[in-house]
C-alpha cells in the first residue's frame, strides 16, 4: 500500500480515468477543455480563476497544474498571490458571514 494519499505522478495519469468509463470520461474531458478555451473571459483570466478555486478546494493536483499553467502564460507571482487572496477572502468571509446567524440566535435567546 502506498504511504501517502497523494502522489504527484498521479496527476499525469488523470486521463486514465476514461479507461474505466470511456463515455463519461470523454464527455468530462471534452467539457473541461471547452471551459478553458477563450470566450468572454480570456484563457489567462480562466487560469487565474482555476488557481484560486484550486486553493479553495485545497486540491494539490490542481494547485500543481495551475501554478505551472500560470507561469507558462506569463502570469506573475504577484498576480497569482492576489488571486489567492480573493479565494481566501471569500472563504474567510463565508465563515464570518455565518456570524450573523450566530448573532440572530444569541439575540433571540438572551434576555
Amino acid at each position, binding site marked *: 500500500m502506498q504511504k501517502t494519499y497523494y502522489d504527484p505522478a498521479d496527476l*499525469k495519469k488523470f486521463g486514465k480515468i476514461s479507461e474505466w468509463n470511456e463515455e463519461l470520461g470523454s464527455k468530462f474531458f471534452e467539457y473541461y477543455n471547452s471551459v478553458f478555451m477563450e470566450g468572454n473571459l*480570456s*484563457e*489567462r483570466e480562466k487560469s487565474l480563476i482555476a488557481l484560486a478555486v484550486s486553493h479553495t478546494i485545497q486540491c494539490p493536483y490542481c494547485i500543481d497544474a495551475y501554478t*505551472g*499553467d500560470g*507561469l*507558462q*502564460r*506569463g502570469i*506573475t507571482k*504577484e498576480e497569482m498571490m492576489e488571486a489567492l487572496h480573493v479565494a481566501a477572502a471569500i472563504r474567510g468571509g463565508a465563515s464570518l458571514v455565518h456570524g450573523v446567524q450566530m448573532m440572530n440566535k444569541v439575540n433571540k435567546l438572551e434576555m
Partner: protein
Amino acid sequence: MIKSLHKRKSELANSNKQVEFLSNGIFKGGELATFNTKIAETNQFPLRPKKLEILQINLGYMCNQVCEHCHVDAGPDRKEIMTKETMLHCLDVIKTTNAHTLDLTGGAPEMNPNFRWFVDEASKAGIKDFIVRSNLTILRANKKYYDLPEFFKNHNIHVISSMPHWTKGKTDKQRGSGVFDKSIKALEELNAIGYGMPNSSLKLDLVYNPSGAFLPGNQVALEKDFKKALHDDFGIQFHNLFAITNLPISRFLDYLIASENYEDYMYALVEAYNPEAVKNVMCTNTISVSWDGFLYDCDFNQMLELPVSSKVKHISEYNEEQLQERTIITSQHCYGCTAGAGSSCQGNIIPA
C-alpha cells in the same frame, strides 16, 4: 553578476560532460525514450536537411550580460571572437549561398571589433532577410554603441531581441540587475527611428524564454500580453514575439540540476513531444557557423561541440551541395525543439 560556467571551471563547461549527462540517467535506463528512438517511431530518423534557408553565424561568445539560462555560456569573460580572416571566409559563402536569411548571433555580436565592417560587407550580398540578434542592453552599454540603432537602420537590419517578460522583476532575475530598464530605453530608441512600428519595414521582433523550469505558453497569447503591457506601460511597439523553449544545455542545464528540476523538466519535454514539429525543426533548414568557422546543424549542437556529419567541416571548405547530403546529429537536447508547437530561433515551428 554571475560568472560563466567556463570562468567557474564547472564540470558542465565541458560539452562532452553535458552530452554524457543527457545520455545517462532517465534516458539510459529506458525510463524515457531517447530522442532518436522517439523520432524513429514516425520514421523520421535520421533527420535530413531540406532546402537551406538560414545561415546563422556566431560572431563570438563575449557578451555584456550573463543570463542565467544562456545556452552559449556567454559573458564578459568569454574571449572566443570571430577573426577577420574567418569573416572573409563567411563573406565568400554569403555571396553564393542559396539561403535567404543571414542571422548574426553571439554572445553580443556587436562586441566583435569587426562587427560593423562585417555587416557593411555582408549587406552588399543582397540577402533578403539580414538579422542581428541584439540583447538590447549593449545598445546602451557604452557610448561607442549608442549609434547602433541608426547603423542597423542604414543597413535595413532585422533586429531580434530577447525580452523574457514585460515586468522588471522577472526580466532582471533572468538577465541581471538593471537589464529591464536598459532594454526599455533601447526599445524606445529603436521605435523612435521607425523600428517595430505597425507599417514599418524596419523589423523588430522580441524573443521570450521562460524564466524557469517550465515550457513557454501559447505564442499568440503571449504576444498579445507582451504587446499590451509594453504599449500601455511604455508606449513601446514591436512586430512579432517568438516564444522559445529553453534547451537543457549549458547554464540552463546547470540550473535544472542545481534546482533539482532536471528530471521533471525532461519529463515535461518528452510528454509535450510533437512529431509534427520534427518535420520542420530548424536544423533541417539551417547551417550554424561558430566563431572559429566550424559548421554545425544548429546553434545548440555548436555549443555541445557536435559538428556536422560531413566531409565539409569548416567555412573555408564550404560546399552547400555536399552539406545537404549529411544526416543531422540529434540527441536528448533536441526534445526542446519538438515540444508542443515546436521551438526554433524563429519561434514556434507549427503556426497557430
